[in-house]
């Protein structure tokens, strides 16, 4: 193997160099738009397009974001909805997935069909909206917490993960008089930490980034999450007062950075779980 690599290096140095250049360019293409936003968020002068470094460094943009109650409240709502929603989503999908692996449970096939059918045919935007409205859930955080928690795709991923647990463990638990609930908490959950992590993270990202549900069900500005707020700031309809020398543009850029910051901090440490999540779904054999 090492030999082969060495041989490759000797044989095709040109290709390796070209390949490295391709990826450096690719990474720059990905990073420059983000970098530009970061730079402009720290620049107190109205930013000129081509600068890649702040001309007049200052954190006034961030001060405007964090001292403005109309901005930190949406941030708090995002945090609350993300945390409670992730727990709810995980609870619902792990319980559901656990039932779907009980092959001799009377009604198991009906349950599976019941859930899978929702992936084939969907109710649609307006009928769902009318149901939410009839339940008096519009303009409550229930609508934006409960609806994304029922994610059949994630539930199926969880089931795929559970199927990897050796059945012998379930049998011995049954013989030892361990009931379904105890088995779930003592065997299934402890053995599925990696799966819980990746699916929990998917839920968390989903909730944090949620815009469509808020747009549909929330019209009360006091219940906006950060994405909704960010959207109205960027569209210019709702710009918070820029103070301490920050320009309008500085505040806009700072708000974008605040929206991605929490994720950027955890992402490098959790990347493998995200990748794992896609692999249990797609490459399952």
């Amino acid at each position: 193997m090492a030999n082969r690599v060495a041989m490759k290096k000797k044989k095709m140095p040109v290709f390796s160099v070209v390949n490295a250049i391709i990826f450096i360019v690719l990474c720059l293409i990905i990073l420059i738009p983000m970098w530009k936003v970061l730079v402009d968020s720290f620049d107190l002068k109205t930013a000129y397009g081509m600068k890649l470094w702040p001309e007049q460094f200052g954190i006034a943009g961030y001060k405007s974001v964090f001292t403005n109650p109309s901005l930190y409240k949406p941030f708090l709502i995002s945090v609350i909805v993300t945390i409670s929603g992730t727990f709810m989503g995980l609870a619902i999908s792990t319980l559901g997935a656990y039932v779907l692996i009980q092959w001799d449970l009377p009604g198991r096939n009906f349950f599976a069909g019941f859930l899978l059918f929702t992936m084939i045919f969907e109710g649609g935007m307006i009928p769902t909206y009318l149901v939410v409205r009839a339940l008096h859930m519009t303009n409550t955080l229930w609508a934006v917490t409960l609806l994304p928690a029922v994610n059949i795709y994630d539930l199926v991923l969880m089931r795929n993960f559970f199927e990897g647990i050796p059945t012998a463990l379930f049998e011995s638990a049954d013989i030892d008089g361990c009931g379904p609930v105890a088995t779930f908490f003592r065997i299934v959950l402890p053995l599925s930490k990696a799966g819980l992590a990746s699916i929990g993270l998917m839920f968390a990202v989903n909730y944090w980034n949620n815009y469509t549900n808020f747009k549909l069900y929330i019209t009360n500005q006091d219940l906006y999450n950060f994405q909704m707020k960010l959207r109205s700031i960027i569209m210019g309809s709702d710009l918070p007062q820029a103070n301490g020398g920050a320009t309008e543009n500085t505040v806009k850029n700072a708000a974008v950075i605040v929206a991605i910051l929490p994720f950027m901090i955890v992402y490098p440490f959790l990347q493998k779980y995200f990748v794992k999540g896609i692999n249990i779904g797609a490459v399952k054999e």
Partner: protein
Amino acid sequence: MSKKIDEQTQKNLAILKEANRRSTLRRIKKYRGFYVMFLPVFILALVFHYIPMIGNYYAFTDYKGIAGAKVNWVGLANFTKMFSMAAFHSAFWNTLFLSITKLLLNTFAAVLISLFLNEIVNIHFKKIAQTIIYLPHFMSWVVTASVFTLILSPTSEGMVNQILVSSGIIDKGIYFLAEDTWWKPMFFVINLWKDTGWGTIIFLATLSGISPDVYEAASIDGAGRFQKMRYITMPALQNTIITVLILNLAKVMNLFESVFVLQNDAVLSTSNVLQTYVYYQTFNSGTIPNYGYTTAVGLTKSVVGCILVLICNWASKKVRDGRGIV
């Protein structure tokens, strides 16, 4: 004689059935914990998926959401109206054009990049490159749209326009996201930027599954890097590519958020897809929402989507040894 045997058989069958029923009951009793555990997802799916499915009958009424007003059955009137609307036709074809083109472009780019990524020898460089190209996938569409609205802005703050103007390619800034000719290309570019990297994961998984021995043998036979790519790597990827296309083809009708956050009034007619059309007609039409009509449009979308899922499921079973997508 035979009658007696028949009677006996009948009796045995009855006993068996009874035993079976009892054992089913016993199993239900034994497993009652499972039914409780299934309750949350059952109730939520019932309320948020099945009741809306039934609610689609509004498509055949003139329901306008006014409390106390009588809801009249109008048959297919909403659908006749829908087919007479130019906006519906453009939204329908736009949905298909935008999502299928996006799917093909993104898949092609992801395959290409994963092939090159697979050739990187330095493991640290590979890790860093992967981390960076996966990143945009996790940004919300609102953030993505914000970033591109800022850098594509026609004013002096827009980086892209500044570069183009100062290098003399154009005379004055182009409003990329608000011009009919530019909106669709920009939509594809932004989608490529956001999801190509993430799309490579599944192809990389396939590539790492190819045994190095095969490449070794090919090298001994004198195959070069590109020959190996052509005769070993590409055939191995073929199945994964088809799988990815099928899985995503089933979802093409659902296009909403990415279009919604990137469009604006200036390009509404070129950018509208079915879901955004339904949204604007219902919540932003300036009059009393005509739920009957917009439900009809939504139902059409769901039916086409359902047919696509079933076709893709059938195709998936053929291609993937009996594994469906649902």
